[in-house]
């Protein structure tokens, strides 16, 4: 079978070559088959009518992933969200060695609701999964997008997002990585409308030789647009994480504000943490900032818990889970949130 090498997660502005952070090359990617998704709570629509609209939506993983999906002949699923809704998309990978779901989500004006995407693999312990979500949000719409990776431990996941937000629309993205092996996460959000907003939080607890490679881009075109890109997690064993985040203020995006923040707990000398948070600015009247805090647990926290009789290993477990719980609190659906919090409590080794 022919496989492909993909160049993914490109930085919008190149850094020094020696850093090896400008993009990631993934070798031997298998052309996927279409995954049939279980979608509840949303109306399916014909993709043809929306191709032109969604072709204009760029994604964070980059063009080569989109080209792979096209070459593989994978037809997108498409849903429309209107009024108010709680939508569940259940993806169960493992029937084939490699499966993909390109999903178009058209969010109508004034929609307010939640889309939960739950990635599992009940049929296999190993495989390759591709999910590309393209979201077009009309004016005044609000979408909470929740993505949970619960794939088996030898799965490779390419999770790609592209979104275009019109005036006063807002996208809240919550991502939690509960398992899986190699994870490539990309998101590119075009804040084209005035007062559009993107708020994202990604949490992870990597162990063993797990890997997370991210590329999140908030493109501010609209006036008074807002972005907040957060990532928090822990690294154990020989895990590796590369977090790329970009806030890009295009000229004309007056009074826009953008923030990037990363907090990482390092629990192993063999883990590799790499971070590259960009701010690109061509507009005077904006406010952008980023912060990163990386390293060991706070000594005062450790002392406090030790003084309460909590063993060191248990303290580390609490700290690992705390980062995941914090992001899980963002899940709007009570039942699903509790399910995920229970799963967090069962994380191996934490």
């Amino acid at each position, binding site marked *: 079978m022919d496989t492909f090498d993909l160049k993914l997660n490109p930085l919008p*502005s190149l*850094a*020094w070559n020696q850093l090896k952070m400008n993009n990631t090359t993934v070798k031997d990617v298998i052309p996927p088959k279409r995954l049939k998704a279980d979608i509840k709570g949303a109306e399916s629509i014909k993709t043809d009518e929306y191709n032109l609209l969604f072709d204009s939506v760029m994604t964070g993983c980059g063009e080569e992933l989109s080209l792979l999906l096209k070459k593989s002949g994978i037809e997108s699923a498409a849903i429309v969200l209107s009024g108010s809704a709680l939508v569940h998309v259940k993806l169960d990978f493992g029937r084939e060695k490699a499966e993909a779901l390109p999903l178009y989500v058209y969010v109508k004006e004034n929609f307010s609701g939640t889309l939960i995407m739950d990635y599992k693999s009940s049929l296999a312990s190993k495989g390759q999964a591709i999910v590309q979500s393209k979201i077009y949000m009309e004016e005044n719409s609000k979408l909470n997008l929740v993505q949970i990776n619960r794939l088996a431990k030898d799965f490779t996941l390419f999770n790609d997002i592209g979104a275009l937000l019109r005036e006063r629309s807002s996208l809240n993205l919550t991502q939690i990585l509960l398992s899986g092996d190699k994870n490539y996460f990309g998101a590119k959000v075009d804040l084209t409308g005035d007062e559009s907003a993107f708020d994202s939080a990604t949490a992870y607890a990597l162990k063993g030789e797990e890997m997370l490679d991210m590329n999140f881009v908030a493109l501010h075109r609209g006036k008074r647009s807002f972005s907040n890109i957060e990532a928090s997690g822990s690294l154990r064993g020989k895990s590796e994480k590369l977090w790329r985040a970009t806030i890009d203020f295009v000229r004309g995006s007056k009074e826009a504000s953008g923030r990037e923040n990363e907090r990482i707990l390092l629990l192993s000398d063999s883990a590799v943490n790499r*971070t590259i948070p960009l701010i690109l*600015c061509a507009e*005077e*009247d904006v406010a952008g*900032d*980023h912060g*990163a805090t990386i390293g060991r647990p706070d000594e005062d926290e450790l002392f406090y818990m030790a003084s309460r009789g909590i063993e060191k290993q248990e303290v580390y477990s609490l700290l690992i889970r705390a980062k995941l719980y914090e992001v899980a609190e963002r899940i709007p659906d009570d039942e699903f949130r509790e399910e995920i919090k229970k799963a967090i409590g069962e994380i191996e080794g934490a």
Partner: protein
Amino acid sequence: MADNEKTYVEDLDRSIYDYKDESKDSYRIEDGLTKEIVERISESKNDPGWMREFRLKALDVYSSMQMVPWGPDISGLNMNKIATYVRPNTSMKADWNDVPEEIKKTFERLGIPKAERDSLAGVGAQYDSELIYHSIREEVAAQGVVYTDMESALTGEYADMVKKHFMQLIHITDHKFAALHGAVWSGGSFVYVPPNTEVKIPLQSYFRLNAPGAGQFEHTLIIVEEGSSLHFIEGCSAPKYNVANLHAGAVELYVAKGAKLRYSTIENWSKNMYNLNTKRAIVSEGGTIEWVSGSFGSHVTYLYPMSILNGEGSKCEFTSITFAGEGQNLDTGMKVVHNAPYTSSHVSTRSISKSGGINTFRSLVKVNENAHDSKSSVSCQSLMVDDISRSDTIPAIDIRAKDVDIGHEAKIGRISDDAVFYLMSRGLPEEEAKAMIVSGFAENVSKELPMEYAVEMNNLIRLEMKGCIG
């Protein structure tokens, strides 16, 4: 009430730097870069055999390397139109009275002789490709401090030391312009501070590139031995021409155990200059390197001073300000590598972009596996004064040890309305409040410089506040 006028940051005043000296060069090599040109440079400098071979090897490396794909466009730099060696009409003197009048006037205009009299332990003044003046105070020389031109150091009693260290920190394979420097370097200073010696007042080198369509490739090599301390200041300027000039200097700093070196730079090249400079320091156990850098000139700059913290407990402090105005694309930043336990780095940078200027800040904080208990904090702030300028921040962090504390923050924006309101609530008029804030923005560097240089820097950034920004 006057109409509401936009606050603006005045363009830098360049009048004292733009003076062109019409004196004839004694020798100007033809434009371009060939093996024959490199051999002639080597011959005219009476290089030892190893240096000649080194230059030719560097030329081969230069020819084989590609320009990097990131960074500002340098297509306006045509090496076939650059003279890599221009010798002024004088040899090196130890007394300003012996320096040819025109050249002396140029340096007097720049305040160098006066600074030397008032507050420096020694001065090296380079004009085009060669030093025209070099001196060190007797009492400093009596401490065993060596401050001499690189060419003398290459062949004199320190020849072995120079050979051992020359381009061992910056390698000719690091990038294309490090290779170019290796091939055509000329001028610069060698400084050696023996153990347990405190050099209480600074040494300074000043680089003036007077010739149009020429390059300056000085090499600075400083070795500060165990327990010693030194403050070294470098300054540079050039008059503006309509043709491109090139600066591809190199600075190599060795800071031994428990030693301290502060390296301050006020860079004010003209706006036709391509400033592709390389600076690197390696710090041993308990040693400290402090960089203080003000970048105000050049058409294009690539500049990322790098510190390798190689000994336990070694430290790096990096403070800089970059001002990009019309026609300038300044790509600056820093790198620090924590390569031993208990090392620490503290970085504070500022940038101002106006009138279409482009500022790019790049950084790398790398913590290797063995660097447990290391700490690093990086703070970078960018001020945009209008919406035709640009400011990009591209910081990278690479951590491979767990018992570390790393913090990074960056901010970009305009003057904070809250800060103005706070000061006004304390009784300051609005204009004065904003003037204070903008002056304070540049203070991170000026407060680290000796007063005379802080004054020069503040002269470079004269700020005129009328009304409010935006």
